[in-house]
Structures are given as structure tokens and as C-alpha cells.
């Protein structure tokens, strides 16, 4: 039991960068902008964060460097999609490749060297709560930050005035504009904030979870795509997104834990287990929208149809209506 608790505390720690990146992407997408560069961005901030911490000797400057890199990336995305009105998917995809290659190119001098790491810091009193204390409150400070972020961003989006404006900008930019809201300024703001948060994920890996920078062997290529799909799974809701992130890392751990029992399956195969799962989740979330399902449902008896509709509605959360669409005032 104790051993299991330690593993689960490890899952909570390992899920933290995913949680933070998912919430960042949720904020960005809520305003109507997609950051498809996320995969490259996490690799780049991982390198930049480690390098900065190594040079300055301060892990916190490393974390800050990750945030700043993320903000700059967000500004490039907003500028190209909001001001220059170019395709967000195109620019995001190009940046994803560019950031990744930049990380590998510029990261060479920092490869395979020991650097500073973030230590854990137990919260007094809370750490002594049975089970919960061991799971959640004997972690490093960034994990505690992620708890605050989950609650704070949920409150911001759904229970505050700025959040109301944010949702308005993402759902109905035209009516938001007619009520005097600077739609594009809001989008710039939340894109930068969201990518900045996503930029924290990289240093969290290289300064804590997978300490050190190992070039292509760092093994972060792919995380960003997972984050993007968890954002969809989470229905652009920080609570659901965080749950998705914890679930994902738990399943990853489960794969590793089961490995000794599956001797014939190479470890590389178990590592990709999340991806079929990602496709299946997206399938469950989206299939209710397709024409053929709608047609098939129409032929079912009423009672059964109602039940299925309810399940579909529970799984499905529609994306912000103007996601990816540039706003033009006419």
C-alpha cells in the first residue's frame, strides 16, 4: 500500500507539467487561438530552462526563462494570426518544427551534464494528513503552484468578469466587440499568458522530472501533441483538463508497471500506448456530431435515444465557436 502511494505521488508530480500546459492551452484556445506549436515549444523551453538554470545556477531563473520563451512564442503566434491573418494551423505547425530543431541545435553544449534540480518541500501540517498528505503535499513547490492554477483558472474562466469577457471573445467575437471589448487585445493577452504557462512545462521536466538535457534522447517529443488532445478531452475546462492529465500519466505509469508481466512487448511499444487511447478518446468525444450517427440515432426508439443523447452530451464539449477564426471588424 505504501509503495503504491509513493508511486501515485510520483504520478501527481509527473503529471504537473502536463496539467500546467493543458491549462495554458485551455486559456489560449478559450480566446479563440490555437497554439499548435506546443510540441516544439515544450522541447525548446525544456532546453532553455535547463540552460538558463545551469548558467545562472538558479532553478527559478530557469523556470522564468521557460515562461518568457513561451510568452515570446505566443506573441509570434498572435502576431501572425491576429495581425497578419495567416493560418494558425500553418504557423503553429511550422513553429512546432522550428522550436524543436532550435532546441536540439542550440542545446548541444548543455547535453548530458549534471545541472541544478528543484527539490521537494513538504507543506507543514498538511503533509501529515493520512494518504492525502503523502499524495499531494510532499511535493515540490511547482506542484503546489499547479493546484492553485487549476482552481484559479477555473474560477477565472467560469466565475469572474474577465472570464466572461474571455469566453465572449472566443465564442462571439462580433457581439463582444459591439459591447466595447477589444477582441484582438484580449486574444493577444490570453495567447501570451497561455503559451507562457505552457512554457513552464519544459523546465519542469529538465529541472525535476527528467533532470538534465539529453538532446533527442530527452524524450519530450510528443508530449505537446498529447497536451493538445487532452485540452480537447477536457472540453476547455481546467478541472476536466487536469483530470485528463492525471489520468494520462497514471495510464503511462500503469504501462510501465505492467511491463515485467508483458516480457514479449518491447518498452517502446508500451510508451506509445497513450496514442491509440488519445484517438479513441477523441473518437468518443466527437462521434456524436457526425451525420451518420445522428441518422442512426433518429431511427432508435425514443427512450433509448434519450439515454444515448445524454451520454453523448456528457462526453462532448463543443470547442469555442470562433477557435482558429480571425476576427475582423467590419
Amino acid at each position: 500500500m505504501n509503495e503504491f502511494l509513493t508511486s501515485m505521488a510520483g504520478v501527481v508530480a509527473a503529471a504537473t507539467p502536463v496539467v500546467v500546459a493543458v491549462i495554458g492551452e485551455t486559456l489560449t484556445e478559450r480566446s479563440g487561438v490555437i497554439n499548435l506549436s506546443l510540441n516544439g515549444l515544450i522541447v525548446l523551453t525544456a532546453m532553455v530552462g535547463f540552460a538558463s538554470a545551469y548558467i545562472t545556477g538558479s532553478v527559478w531563473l530557469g523556470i522564468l526563462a521557460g515562461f518568457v520563451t513561451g510568452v515570446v512564442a505566443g506573441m509570434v503566434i498572435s502576431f501572425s494570426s491576429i495581425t497578419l491573418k495567416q493560418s494558425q494551423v500553418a504557423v503553429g505547425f511550422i513553429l512546432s518544427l522550428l522550436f524543436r530543431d532550435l532546441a536540439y541545435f542550440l542545446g548541444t553544449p548543455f547535453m548530458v551534464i549534471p545541472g541544478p534540480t528543484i527539490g521537494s518541500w513538504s507543506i507543514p501540517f498538511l503533509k501529515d494528513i493520512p494518504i492525502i498528505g503523502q499524495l499531494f503535499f510532499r511535493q515540490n513547490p511547482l506542484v503546489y503552484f499547479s493546484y492553485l492554477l487549476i482552481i484559479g483558472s477555473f474560477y477565472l474562466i467560469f466565475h469572474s468578469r474577465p472570464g466572461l469577457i474571455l469566453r465572449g471573445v472566443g465564442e462571439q467575437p462580433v457581439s463582444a466587440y459591439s459591447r466595447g471589448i477589444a477582441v484582438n487585445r484580449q486574444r493577444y493577452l490570453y495567447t501570451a499568458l497561455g503559451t507562457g504557462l505552457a512554457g513552464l512545462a519544459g523546465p519542469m521536466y529538465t529541472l525535476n522530472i527528467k533532470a538534465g538535457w539529453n538532446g533527442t534522447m530527452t524524450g519530450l517529443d510528443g508530449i505537446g501533441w498529447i497536451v493538445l488532445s487532452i485540452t480537447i478531452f477536457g472540453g476547455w475546462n481546467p478541472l476536466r483538463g487536469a483530470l485528463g492529465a492525471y489520468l494520462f500519466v497514471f495510464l503511462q505509469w500503469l504501462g510501465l508497471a505492467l511491463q515485467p508481466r508483458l516480457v514479449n512487448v518491447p518498452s517502446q511499444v508500451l510508451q506509445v500506448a497513450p496514442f491509440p487511447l488519445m484517438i479513441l478518446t477523441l473518437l468518443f468525444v466527437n462521434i456524436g456530431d457526425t451525420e451518420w450517427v445522428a441518422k442512426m440515432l433518429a431511427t432508435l426508439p425514443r427512450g433509448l435515444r434519450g439515454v444515448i443523447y445524454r451520454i453523448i452530451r456528457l462526453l462532448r464539449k463543443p470547442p469555442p465557436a470562433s477557435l482558429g477564426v480571425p476576427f475582423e471588424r467590419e
Partner: protein
Amino acid sequence: MIRNHKITNYLFRIAGILIAFLFTAIVLMIARANPSEAFANIFLGAVSTPIKIADSLVAWVPLILTSCGLVITFTAGLWNIGIEGQITLGAIATTWMLRLLQDSGWPSVVILLIGFLAGIAGGVIWAMLAGGLKFFGGVSEIFAGLGLNFIATALTIYLIFGPWKRAGVASMSGTKPFEESLWLPTIPGFRLSIWSIVLAVVSVLIVFILLKNTIIGLRLKAVGKNPKAAVQMGIPTSRYMLLSFILCGIFAGLTGAMQVIGVYHRLIPSISSGYGFLGLLVAMLVNYQILWAAPVALFFAALNIGGIQLPIMMKLDSTLSGVMQSSFVLFYILMDGVRKIWIKNKEKTRDE
């Protein structure tokens, strides 16, 4: 006035390329390297000897093949990011057929042809999976494709370390190489095969004719430009989108088959070598015009080959080629946005 716009269009494109060079130079300076020395090494590394030129052409073939397929999906307005997996599945299917038939005693030509067909089938099946997920499951082709890419890579590694492992040691170097009789014949002294060049050129021409002169091409364009209007014109949109996936899968599968039969002569873990994603960059840059893809892909392939010199000559990582390629496309697209705003403003002042 139109003529005037054409000149400004070219000026903006050239400016984009220059900015990309400048950006790469800054990146090199951050890495404390001399930019002109690095550019010279890349250039010489790609063209200084006949062998290097031939190697650039060897890299050009898979790149132009994937670009051929991607121009079709782009025309239909789709992002086939799953192309990497489609290449991989093509390579797996080809390897499978060659393994089955290598001791059959059949003529090599027959076995190789079957190998290529199997590759096409592999690519098409994987493309149809992504397409099917999009049209019957409502999953964005971007995420379906990405997931399928990772699954394809895992399948390759499983095969190399599992059922197809080399006698004795299974390793990242791949499966056991095929007999030389099953290699695509090359020009003596080079790694380049005339047949692969022929295949590439024919593919470009086929896609050019398909998109320019056939009803299918016209309808794909209609679907890509405005799907809603296409439906009103009576075009079965999703059927045409699925068709574009299948056509792209053909070229992706061919790429995989070519890498197995013509280049590596076995299945290796990273058999797609990133040519799918690079093809996406090429297709974005040429903006649906397949004829332009030929020179652009050659330039990108030369950058890949030239980049190999960087670790040898300057102790720099060869990923600089990737930095250059993606910054070319990035600044091209950014300058395109600037150009549109510039023209709009100019017309506004003229109207006043």
C-alpha cells in the same frame, strides 16, 4: 497595376528568404559559430562532388513524392499530418512482401513490383484510417494523423525487435538487409537510382495533370476552397476528401517502399526520416503548385545533405538544416501576410 503587384509579390518573397537567412545567421551566432562558414559548408556539402549531388537527389526523391501527395490533400483543404505514419506503413508492407518472397525464386523485377504495390497498399490503408476517423468519427485529421504516426513508429520498432529481429542481435540498426538482387539498381559508384528519379518525375507530372486538367482536380479545389458551396454544387464533399487522403496515401506508401527498396534495403526504426513533415513544409511553400515543388524540394534536400557536414567540419548539430527549412517557410508566410496588408493599404489610399 496588376503587373505592379506581381513585382511586389516577388519582392516580398525575396525579402522573406533574406530574413530567414538573417534569422539562421543569428541562431548560428548564438551558438558561437561563424554564419558564413556554416553556410559555405552546407553549400559545399551538397554540391561539391558528383557523389554529394547524387546524394542530394537521393534525398530529393522521397521529399518530392511526399510533396506530390500533400499538394493533393492541401488542395482539398486537409492537413494530412499523418503522412509520416503512411510512409512508415508503406515501408513495413514492402519489407513484409520482400521477406515473404525473397526465397521464392521469382524474378527480382516481379518481387520488387509486388513490393512497391504492397507499399502503396500500406500507405493507403493508413491514410484511410485517418480519413475514416475524420469522416465517420469526427476526429480532426491532425490529431488522428499524429496518433497514427506514433502507432506506426511503435509498430516498426516492435517488428524490428520482435518477429523480424536479426538472428543473434536485434538492434536499432534495423532488420537484416535484403540480398543485393532485391536492391533497386543504382548508377555504378553512386547511391542514386535512375528508376527513382523517373518515378519522381512521373509523379510530379501525374499530379500536375490531375489537378490542372481533370474533373477530379477541379472538384478537389472546389471542396478545399469552400466546402459548403461545393455541397450546394452537388459535389459529395466527404467522398472527395477521403479520395484526397487515398491519393496522398499512394504517394506516401510509394515513398516508404522506395526508402526500403532503393535506399536502406531493410526496415529501420526511423524509416520515414521526417520526409513527411518536410513535405508539409514544401507543400505550404509552393501553395498548391506542384511544379514549383520540384525545385523547392531539391533545395530542401540539398540542405539536408549539406547539413551533414556541420558536425564533421564545425562540431555543430546537423539540425541547423531543419532550422533553416522551417524558418524559410515561416518568414515566407509572415511576409505574405505583410504583403496582403501592404496592398490593402495601398489600394485604400488610391481609392481616397
